[in-house]
C-alpha cells in the first residue's frame, strides 16, 4: 500500500504538470492571436474611422479607404456562400445518406479528402486557367467567388457530414417507418436538425476564405477601383440584377497586400487598419458561428 501510495502521488503530479503544460500552450496560442490583433489595432488606429470605410483607394495614404475592398469582399463571400453551401451540403448529403458502397463513392471520398489538402495557390492557378481564361469569366466577382467556393468546399462537406451524422439513427428510422422516401427523410428531418452544424461549418469555411490572398492574387484582382459594382437591386422589374457578378472588384486581402508593398510608409498604417478590420470580420463570423452552434444545441437536445 505504501509503495502504491508513492506511485499515486507521482502519477497525480504528472497529471497536474500536464494540465499546466496544456494551459501554457493554450495561453501562448491565444497570446499570439491577441498580440497580432493588438499590434494591428495599435498601428492602424489613426485610420480606423468612418472615412476609412467609405473612401476609395488613393495615392495619398491619408485619403485612401477600403470601400471598394470591403464591398468586393462581401460580394465575393456572398457568391462563395451561395455556391459552396448548396454544392457542399448536397455532396455531404449524398455521401452520408445516399451513397452506395461502390467505387464512385470511394473516388468522391478520396477526392474530398485530397482537396482539403490542396494548397490554396493551386486553386489560384486553376481559377486563372479555368474560370478566367477557359470559361471567360475574366477577373470578375463570379470568378473569385467560385474559386473560393471550391477552396472551402471540403470544409463545408466535412462539417456537414459531421452534423448530419449526429442526427440519431432512430429519428431516421422513425421517418422511414412512416413511409417517407429518402429525400423526404433528408429534407424534413436530417437537414433541419443538423442546420446548426451546417451553418457553423459554412461560417468557418467563409472565415478561411475571407483572408485568402494567394488565389485571388493569381486571378489578378484589381487594386485600384474607385467605384462599386452594379447594385444587385434595381428600380425596375425584376428588381434583381446579377450584373455585379461580372463586375471587376478588389478585395480586402488584395488591398492590404498592395498597401504593404507600397513605398510610402503611410500606407503601412492603412494596411494595419485594413488587417484589423479583416481580422475583426473573421472574429465576428466566428462569433456568429459559436452563437449558432449554441442556439441549435439548446434547441435540439437528443
Amino acid at each position, binding site marked *: 500500500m505504501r509503495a502504491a501510495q508513492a506511485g499515486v502521488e507521482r502519477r497525480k503530479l504528472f497529471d497536474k504538470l500536464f494540465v499546466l503544460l496544456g494551459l501554457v500552450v493554450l495561453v501562448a496560442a491565444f497570446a499570439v492571436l491577441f498580440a497580432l490583433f493588438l499590434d494591428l489595432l495599435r498601428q492602424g488606429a489613426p485610420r480606423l474611422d468612418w472615412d476609412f470605410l467609405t473612401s476609395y483607394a488613393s495615392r495619398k495614404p491619408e485619403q485612401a479607404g477600403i470601400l471598394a475592398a470591403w464591398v468586393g469582399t462581401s460580394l465575393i463571400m456572398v457568391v462563395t456562400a451561395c455556391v459552396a453551401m448548396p454544392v457542399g451540403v448536397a455532396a455531404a448529403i449524398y455521401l452520408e445518406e445516399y451513397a452506395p458502397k461502390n467505387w464512385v463513392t470511394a473516388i468522391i471520398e478520396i477526392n474530398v479528402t485530397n482537396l482539403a*489538402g490542396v494548397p490554396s495557390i493551386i486553386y489560384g492557378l486553376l481559377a486563372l486557367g479555368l474560370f478566367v481564361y477557359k470559361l471567360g469569366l475574366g477577373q470578375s466577382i463570379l470568378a473569385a467567388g467560385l474559386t473560393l467556393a471550391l477552396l472551402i468546399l471540403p470544409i463545408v462537406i466535412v462539417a456537414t457530414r459531421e452534423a448530419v451524422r449526429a442526427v440519431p439513427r432512430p429519428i431516421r428510422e422513425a421517418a422511414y417507418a412512416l413511409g417517407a422516401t429518402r429525400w423526404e427523410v433528408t429534407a424534413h428531418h436530417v437537414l433541419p436538425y443538423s442546420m446548426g452544424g451546417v451553418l457553423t461549418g459554412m461560417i468557418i469555411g467563409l472565415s478561411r476564405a475571407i483572408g485568402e490572398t494567394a488565389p485571388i492574387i493569381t486571378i489578378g484582382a484589381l487594386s485600384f477601383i474607385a467605384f462599386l459594382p452594379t447594385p444587385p437591386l434595381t428600380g425596375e422589374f425584376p428588381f434583381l440584377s446579377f450584373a455585379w457578378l461580372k463586375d471587376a472588384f478588389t478585395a480586402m486581402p488584395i488591398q492590404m497586400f498592395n498597401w504593404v508593398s507600397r513605398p510610402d510608409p503611410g500606407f503601412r498604417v492603412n494596411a494595419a487598419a485594413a488587417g484589423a478590420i479583416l481580422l475583426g470580420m473573421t472574429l465576428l463570423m466566428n462569433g456568429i458561428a459559436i452563437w449558432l452552434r449554441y442556439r441549435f444545441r439548446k434547441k435540439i437536445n437528443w
Partner: protein
Amino acid sequence: MVTPKSPAPFAKSIRRRRARDRVIESLLLLAGLVAVFTTLAIVWILVAEALPFFSHVPLADFLTDTMWTPLFAEPRYGILPLVAGTLVTTFVALALAIPAGTIIAIYLSEFASHRVRESVKPALEMLGAVPTVVYGYFALVMVTPFLQKLLPGLPGFNMLSAGLVIGIMIVPYVASVSEDAMRAVPNYMREGSYAMGATRLQTATRVVVPGALSGIAAAYILGISRAVGETMVVAVAAGLQPNLTWNPTESAATITSFIVQVSLGDLPHESIGYQSIFAAGLVLLVITLAFNIVGFALTRRFREAY
C-alpha cells in the same frame, strides 16, 4: 372492423415521389462529383501548362539538378532547392504545431470541462482565420528580430521564423481535428481505464490517443498539407532565394512562394520561366498527394474497431 386498405390510392403519389427521389439523387451525386471534377481540372490545367515546359526541360534535369534559376540568363531547372525549402519550412512548422496541437487536443478532450472546450475550440480556430499576409509580416517584423536575439547571426530572412509562424497558424487545425478524433473514442474505453486506477494522463496517453490514432493521423496530414501549401508567409519572411539547404536558419524559397512571385511578376506568359510555375505547381500537388496517400495508408493501418 376497418377494411384493409389496398395500396392503390397511394400508387400514383408513390410513383411521383420516387421519381422525384431519383432526380434529386442524381443532383446530389452531381454535387459530389464536383470534387472529382475539381481534381481533374486541377490536374488538367497543371499538366497542360507544364507540358511545354517539359518539352524544353528534360524531366531528369528537373528532378536531379540542384539549382533552380529558371529566370536567369543561364537557366537551371532543378526543382530540388524549392522542394528542400518547402520541406524544411513544413518540418519547422510541424515541429511546433504537432506537439502544441496534440497537447491542446489532449487537454481539451480529457482535462478541460465541457464549457471550456466549447468556447476554446472555436476561439482557437480564429488563429487559423488570420489573413496570411498578416502572418507574413508578423514573422518578418516580430518573430525574426526576437529569434535574432536568441540566435545571433540569424539572417533577416530565414525559414525558421516563417516555419514557426506557419506552425502557429496550423495549430488550430491539428488541435481541432485531433480533439474530434479523441472525443470519438467511446466513453466506456475511458471508464475501463479509470476503473483500473489510471490517472487522466495515463488514460489519455495509453487508451485515448492510441484509440484515436487514425483520426490524429488525419489531423497531422491536414496540418502537413496546410504547411506545404502555405504561400504568403514564406513569400514575405523566408527570402525568395532558391537554396538547396536543410538548415532552417538559412533563407530559401518554397514552391508556393515561387509561384506567387512569378505570377505577379513581369515575365512574358509564353516564356519557359513563366511556364515553370505550372511545373512547380504539379510538384506541389504531387507532394501533397503523396502525404495524403501515406496518411490514408497509415490511417487504415491504425484504424481501431471498438
